[in-house]
């Protein structure tokens, strides 16, 4: 195996299809340690599928994926994941603290309940997302933005090497969107971050590099993104809007 020294995630000639039509087609991608990579592309362009392949939730039909030099399913516990839509029922009787505590699974021992160290880690993770005061709230009472911060805390609480976020700011207001991305930029000093977004203009001011996926994948340094690149990805009728007000 020829892993590059600094490569955290490597995809080589990876293809995947749900029904015979390729959603991800012959994709090559190397993400290096400490990189902040934005993934953009049109709806149904394969963004979430690409993340699920890296997470080991889906198996590629061809090609090879390595995460931290291992099979994706062997590296899952080193990843903090924020899904686009929470895969749980909002009516579940659980407090924010308990939900975030579940992010500590896979650390520590097998049997019994959570320990003091776990609870301290939860308080720290909630503080990281300005959610200290949410810890005793039942999740059914959270607003969309509060829930998003809780999901981020749940991903951070295991102190993962890699953070993978699927549209982390889709349901929240813009001030919080800036807050969350500022937080991510701060974390980037210690972590490798992949973030999917539909909003290329917004994320390009944060990330080092943008991967555009529309079945196939093309990478751009953020300083090279202009109207031409965006037109190639989304087609012609696109206007750029500056988001910094």
């Amino acid at each position, binding site marked *: 195996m020829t892993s590059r020294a600094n490569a955290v995630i490597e995809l080589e000639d990876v293809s995947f299809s749900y029904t015979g039509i390729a959603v991800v087609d012959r994709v090559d991608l190397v993400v290096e340690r400490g990189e902040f990579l934005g993934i953009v592309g049109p709806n149904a362009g394969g963004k979430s599928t690409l993340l699920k392949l890296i997470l080991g939730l889906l198996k590629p039909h061809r090609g090879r994926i390595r995460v931290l030099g291992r099979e994706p399913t062997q590296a899952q*516990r080193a990843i903090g994941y924020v899904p686009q839509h929470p895969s749980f029922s909002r009516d579940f009787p659980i407090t924010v603290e308990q939900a975030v505590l*579940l992010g500590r699974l896979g650390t520590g021992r097998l049997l*019994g309940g959570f320990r003091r160290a776990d609870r301290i880690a939860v308080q720290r993770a909630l503080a990281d997302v300005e959610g200290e005061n949410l810890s005793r709230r039942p999740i059914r009472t959270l607003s969309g933005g509060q829930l998003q911060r809780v999901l981020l805390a749940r991903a951070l609480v295991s102190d993962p090497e890699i953070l993978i976020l699927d549209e982390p700011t889709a349901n929240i207001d813009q001030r919080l969107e800036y807050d969350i991305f500022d937080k991510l930029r701060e974390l980037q000093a210690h972590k490798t971050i992949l973030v999917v977004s539909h909003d290329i203009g917004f994320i390009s001011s944060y990330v080092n590099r943008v991967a555009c996926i529309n079945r196939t994948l093309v990478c751009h340094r953020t300083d090279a993104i202009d109207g031409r690149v965006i037109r190639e990805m989304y087609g012609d009728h696109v206007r750029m809007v500056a988001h910094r007000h």
Partner: protein
Amino acid sequence: MHEFLAALSEQSFLRTALAAGLLASIGCGIVGSFVVVKQIGYLAGGIAHSVLGGMGAAHYFGFPPLAGALIAAVISALLIGLIRLHWKAAEDTLIGALWAIGMAIGIMFIAKTPGYSTDLMSYLFGNILLVPPRDLWIMAALDVLLIGAVGLFYRQFLAVAFDEEFADLRGVPVPVFYLVLLCLVAVTVVLLIQVVGLILVIALLTLPAAIAGHYVQSLNMMMIGATVLGGVFTAGGLAISYAPDLPPGPTMILLAGGAYIASAIFSRILATRRARPR
């Protein structure tokens, strides 16, 4: 009520019945909470009804029906679990088929068993007054099994109940815990069949937990609340049914059902009140 308390001190079969009801409510509280939050009432119903196949077979071959029930319940839980894990598209139909096939097998065996067959009604509707005292020990052992399994692996069960995808990513073997959870449902079904019979099992499995769910914010509080409520309904049903000589199982279910409807309305009113700006 006074009459019931007086009879309780005189009649040992009533004390046995009360103990059986209380032992069953531990299972109904712990496992019923999972059934409610994971919304697997239909799966639990399938397990409960297909148990008749095992009880019928035990009846025919002369084994204790409780053993037949336990084996049938675990087999049917594993079958239903594997269907859910590997054949999700046809889940609904397949569970329905297993439900009916299990019952048909049971009725077949009971019909072909020589001699007078009164047991069918007590399998279907239970009779807490006929629980033999030695069965209390088996029920207690099953409770210890449930408490032990959920106590040791509480975090994993909570994770699988709350968010399977995330549990998987954190390294929890989700299919294993899912199948074990269904086996715990099977054990609980067998506990409750003693009390209310297999047709009414689903009510005691879901109603106490659902009522508790109206008021608590965590799964462990839901388990405690549902256990207490299960005890109130079984003991209360037994007491109410005694003097007018009503069947105790249906009395318990009507008590639980009435309480559930009242609680659903009450908690809705409470929620609207809270939401109203002051």
